[in-house]
């Protein structure tokens, strides 16, 4: 499989969030603001997002990297790096 692009990674994040917070409209998420507060994810929900991303993308996000997932934009950047995609088009 070729490395996923930004759009696919964003879709994966929305998918993971949607499983936990179905009432959230992805269009309402501000990409530069803290994600957990916007979507009201507690630590259990957040762990489930990490697990879901693991299932979708096959990457294991260590706890020490959780800070990289603060906002939607940063999360996509991080996943792009982890999935071996290029950040050149950024």
């Amino acid at each position, binding site marked *: 499989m070729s490395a996923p692009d930004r759009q696919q990674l964003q879709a994966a994040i929305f998918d993971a969030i949607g499983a936990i917070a179905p009432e959230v409209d992805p269009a309402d998420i501000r990409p530069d603001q803290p994600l957990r507060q916007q979507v009201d994810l*507690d*630590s259990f929900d957040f*762990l489930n997002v990490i697990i879901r991303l*693991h299932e979708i993308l096959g990457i294991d996000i260590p*706890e020490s990297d959780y800070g990289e997932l603060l906002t939607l934009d940063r999360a996509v950047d991080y996943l792009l790096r982890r999935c071996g995609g290029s950040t050149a088009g950024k």
Partner: protein
Amino acid sequence: MEAGTLVEWRIKPGDAVTRGQVVAVVETQKGAIDVEIWDSGIVDRLVARPGAKIPVGEVLALLRGDGKTAAPPATTPSAIAPTAVTAPVPSAAQSAADRQKISPSARRLAQELGVDLATVQAQTADGVISRADIERAAATAKPAAVAPAAGDWRAQMRKAIAAAMARAKREIPHYYLATDIDVTPLLAWLAAENAKRSVVERLLPAVPLMKAVALALREVPELNGFWIDGAFRPSSAVHLGMAIAMRGGGLVAPAIHDADRKTCDELMAALRDLITRVRGGRLRSSEMADPTVTLTSLGEQGVAQVFGVIYPPQVAIVGLGRIRERPWVTAGTVAVRQVLTASLAADHRVSDGHRGALFLAALDRLLQAPETLAEKA
């Protein structure tokens, strides 16, 4: 809670059932509840039909005893109400009555309040139904009297919370204590532990905290049990009620049974299972019935401390705030440490501040040796 709607059967005639097995799903004011059966036997006949609205105490199904052909009218009443705390599934009216031990004054009270005894379960190990059991059943029955339409269970839950909390503030003389605990060693241990684990095996900080709370409660048993009929009835088991918020408002505090005897991995599995079912609306009647103490953790929402309201007839609630970096003085030096404020609200009829303080001290001590928490069972 007066009635629920039978959603589905999990058993069919001829099935062998064992005590504790989930036999049906009933929609209630707190969402769908898995109804457990309190007798073992063979399913003889399903009486209630899915979709039917069933009053609490109504016969749901007939059982016959293992291997016997005669069918004593064992039954599955509509159990249910998480709040009706009890209401689960005794057997037939007569056989249940034979087995039920109840004080005469409690029996009178049940008549006055119109509480069906088949739906009442004693909170204590001796199994004797007390006035408090009746009051609880009556109190939880009231909110549901206002037509529990399937859609407005959230409003019903609000009423159930209102009833329980108003009673707590009316009857329980709370006292409150809090202390700051250095949880730097705990978080360091947890980070090292989680680094070794795959994503699906990771522990949340809540897990070792639950374990420490449960173990500390063993040291101060006056905080674990029930206040019933003017007397404290301690519980030898620690069934830790976990206050879990629902998305969009409301909360429930179902029990993790024998939390003090579970390993951290078992607690994580139990917590995961419980939160998933709370948010998916699938609790079991026994989980709603028997927490012996409650743990509330509002740290997630960013508050530094929380002083809880005791859930009657329990006698204590432990509160945990957000873990945050604070200046911390040890041996004359200021250092930055990860600090958690733990609080206790307890019933002054049962314990005093001195004993409550010993609990918080025990909690602190246990959290300083996280590696021993993991194994202790």
